[in-house]
């Protein structure tokens, strides 16, 4: 994975996302998803620039079907912001950096 984002799995989801004291943005992605690949570098930048306020975690839906199903993800990329163990915001589809920063303004 990139330097500023972390990788989460079905196994680590509880510890890394649900129990995190900072908000966590989970990026649900897959290899075969073009728009997911396009948004990946944008997320790396945002993760690096706002590391103190927000953790960005990548979850591969092929390898981790449970987490994706639990979150009700039916379209990727889906970016779900978890705070206090709950999904507080869902962003569906690839968006340019400016758009994402605006969507995440409550958190960063």
């Amino acid at each position, binding site marked *: 994975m990139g330097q500023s984002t972390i990788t989460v799995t079905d196994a680590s989801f509880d510890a890394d996302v649900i129990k995190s004291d900072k908000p966590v943005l989970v990026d649900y992605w897959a290899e*075969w998803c073009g728009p997911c690949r396009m948004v990946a570098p*944008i997320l790396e930048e945002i993760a690096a620039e706002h590391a103190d306020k927000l953790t960005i975690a990548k979850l591969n839906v092929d390898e981790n079907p449970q987490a*994706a199903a639990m979150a009700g*993800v*039916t379209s*990727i990329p889906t970016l779900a912001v978890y705070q206090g163990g709950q999904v507080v915001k*869902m962003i569906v*589809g690839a*968006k340019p*950096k400016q758009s994402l920063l605006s969507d995440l303004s409550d958190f960063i």
Partner: protein
Amino acid sequence: MSEIRDVIIIGSGPAGFTAAVYTARANLSPLMFEGSVTAGGALMNTTEVENYPGFAEGIMGPALMEQMRQQAVRFGAEIVTDDVVSVDLTSDIKQVTVGSGATHQAKSVILAMGSGYRELGLDNEKRLSGRGVSWCATCDGFFFRGQHIAVIGGGDSAIEEATFLTKFADSVTVVHRRDELRASKIMAGRAAANDKISFAWNSEVADVLGDEKVSGLRLRDTQTGHERDIDVTGVFVAIGHDPRSELVTGQVDLDDEGYVLVEGRSTLTNLPGVFACGDLVDHTYRQAITAAGSGCAAALDAERHLAALEDALRPLADATA
């Protein structure tokens, strides 16, 4: 401010890349903006492209776009991955501002922004987007394994999506307003032969049902007005495309539906030095190959325009020599 370029190309589908190849080979050093998340255009969301001439065995959409991109780069096109957020095309020197904040200037601009998915326009369609409502089968089909889903539409795209989705779904109901498909004979034939595909004819979507996610559709008979509900957990909207002309509204002349107007069979818009091609202009054909053809025309029109500008300046240059 940066130097004044000869040509800026906005858009990176087959129209944009063909324009890039031709203008690059004409030594015009084109500057192209490919969107940060929309680079490659509509074909990035399709799997096999079987009808683009020159590929006897077919080619995957993203692979075709990668080839076009490499070809443009080979001849010297400068491609920047950023989104154009505003333009001023009304003066001789056109201004193009991008997401990063920079403004670029050029003597000519080629508009190739293409089109975007048309939505049904229902509130619940928007609300449930990403929770059972999708406009892209190849993107989201994966999540509908073993489910009963619906595809709205009657053209080639709808049938292609429906057929693709049978790889995942248990059943696909094609919902169409008329009693026969607009799709090509070969596509319609494949759909008819597919056991998993059934049809709801003369039907339009009155509403999308479901709280946290899609649970069904309310259909209305287009002839009798009678309504009925069907149980589906996925809805793929494939009813066509709308031109992405928001960037140039108020500057370039558009028709009633938002398509950019061009002179006859050229790519000339109402603004000198501004050329438009691809699905941004084309209501009628909207194929990758027709887009590519018009991208070439735009490049040639731009080249002629720039040569005429030079000729106009030459007497001045000669006089001062």
